[in-house]
């Protein structure tokens, strides 16, 4: 690739102080060669298995690829996609997923704030709350199906609260099923985001809090005025991780909980890619949806970066 061409070019040698320069350039050259040799395996693998397929996806997105043969159609495939109401229905599910992102960030932020007070047993709580991070979506999804079913704990809880009219099988209707997926997603993000915020809080110098206290700030004001601004980059990281998970890592959860249904009720873009390609055999459409997903996620990160930079 690009780096390979650079290897053969020799570094410039000047006439003055030739011996020292020559010696150093020899060392530089061996360092440069060693650098290339060491980076090459990773570069080859990433190039062949990650970068090259992106290029292919972009190309095949403008064809009618079925996995074996393909004919060039052109950018009009995108127009066709954007005119397809099903695409917008699926995108709506991604929107509903995005709505749960603030919850998936703020709930663990609250928990981290409480644990940062270092109340009795906080290390134990930290371990327990982080625990689901180790468990696969498949397993969590399998339990979640039972949790949201009629006769499950959610229905029992609603019954106990006297909300009997809300007792349904939540996976049976499109929007309630999407809400169930959202809730399960939030549940699974709590541990990761809590750890991110706890790490951030532990880097804040306690002296700052004392200064805030002297200025008359209470617990809540100190959190809002001292902790929050200092956690900015942790918010950024948490947002990126949460969006990557929501849009690109929920396949297994949806596969187990709903299979994308009822109807297209819980089919997100990510799941749609899989369905179009491997159930319908529309590999070109699948590749195109993958490209659209990539563009949307990239756009979200840009917006996020712009927003947080603007706050400075």
């Amino acid at each position, binding site marked *: 690739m690009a780096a390979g061409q650079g290897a053969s070019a020799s570094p410039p040698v000047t006439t003055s102080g030739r011996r020292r320069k020559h010696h150093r350039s020899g060392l530089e050259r061996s360092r440069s060669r060693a650098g290339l040799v060491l980076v090459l395996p990773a570069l080859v693998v990433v190039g062949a298995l990650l970068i090259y397929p992106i290029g292919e996806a972009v190309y095949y997105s403008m064809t009618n690829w079925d996995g074996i043969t393909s004919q060039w159609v052109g950018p009009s495939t995108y127009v066709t996609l954007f005119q397809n109401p099903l695409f917008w229905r699926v995108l709506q599910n991604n929107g509903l997923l995005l709505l749960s992102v603030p919850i998936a960030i703020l709930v663990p932020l609250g928990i981290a704030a409480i644990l940062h007070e270092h109340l009795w047993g906080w290390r134990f709580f930290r371990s327990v709350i982080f625990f*689901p*991070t180790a468990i696969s979506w498949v397993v969590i999804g399998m339990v979640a199906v039972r949790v949201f079913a009629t006769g499950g704990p959610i229905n029992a809880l609603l019954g106990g609260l006297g909300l009997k009219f809300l007792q349904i099988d939540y996976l049976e209707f499109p929007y309630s099923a999407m809400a169930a997926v959202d809730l399960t997603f939030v549940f699974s993000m*709590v541990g990761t985001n809590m750890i991110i915020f706890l790490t951030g809080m*532990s880097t804040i110098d*306690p002296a700052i809090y004392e200064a805030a206290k002297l200025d008359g700030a209470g617990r809540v004001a100190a959190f809002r005025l001292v902790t929050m601004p200092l956690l900015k980059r942790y918010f950024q990281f948490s947002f990126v991780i949460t969006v990557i998970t929501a849009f690109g890592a929920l*396949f297994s959860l949806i596969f187990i909980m709903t299979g994308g249904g009822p109807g297209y009720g819980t089919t997100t873009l990510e799941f749609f*890619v*899989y369905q179009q390609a491997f159930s319908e055999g529309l590999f070109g459409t699948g590749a195109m949806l993958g490209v659209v997903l*990539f563009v949307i996620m990239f756009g979200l990160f840009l917006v996020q970066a712009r927003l947080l930079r603007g706050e400075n």
Partner: protein
Amino acid sequence: MAAERERIVGGDSASVGPQAPSAGSRRARFRVDRVSVILFIVMVVCSGVMLYPFGFMIVNSFRTENQFLTGVGFSAASWGVLFKDLPVGVELLNSALVCTAAILLILAWSSAAGFAFAKLKFRRQGVVFIAIIGCLMVPVQSIIIPEYVNLANVHLVNNYLGAILVYAALGTPFATFLMTVFFRGLPDELIEAGLCDGVSYPGAFLRIAVPMAMPALATVAVLQFIQIWDDLLIGLLFLQEPTNRTITVGLAVLSSGNVVSVPALMAGSVVSALPAVVVYLFFQRYLVRGLTMGAVR
């Protein structure tokens, strides 16, 4: 606030303040006021919610279908059903094989690349770095379809090597990032001292840098283990035969078949979750470090 600060100093090694904690009276410093009691109760409730799925799994795996529906009584019969319907042993071995091979590959080339980015200057370094690390932004679904077709064309679908390579490639960007961050923290003098002793650059990497990088390598290994062990999509596409399935895929397929009782599925969930849980319990520290290193730099 003075009392609170003392508690922080006494309680958390990460935030060491100027005052030394006096070991004897640490417990007495945990404030017992109304707010703390309420927060404590909130944390107990949160913990209960987080542990609920695991408890649900274990309790219901010891029930028969009928006992599950009525919620009364216990039996180990479902565990027998599980081992009869799911080739648990083979699938666990498949998972272990795929995980181990992919992790070893990731460790090898991401540590080499990380060392090169942090300690060696070479041409087009910036472009190469961005090319590898930028792939962090690429969702699996954007590449999975061409990937599948490419690997099918070279007969790597339904072949352990195919799944191993895809897992290894997907793990490489973040692992390389972590290793670069780690090696940047190593003093240059260590490497230079080795070079003065006549060691080559690759020798300095293998004999000086790698032994010092053990904590970072452990972080990468733990993170990747959890990720690969728990993955469904790659396994589902690249290992489709009942004989080469991983445990997570086997369980998902069993679940989508709708023929096995819920308690047997719960027993399967316990089995599939257990290795990751054990890794979590022993190496939680490394997992935490891996997740937060991205935020620190």
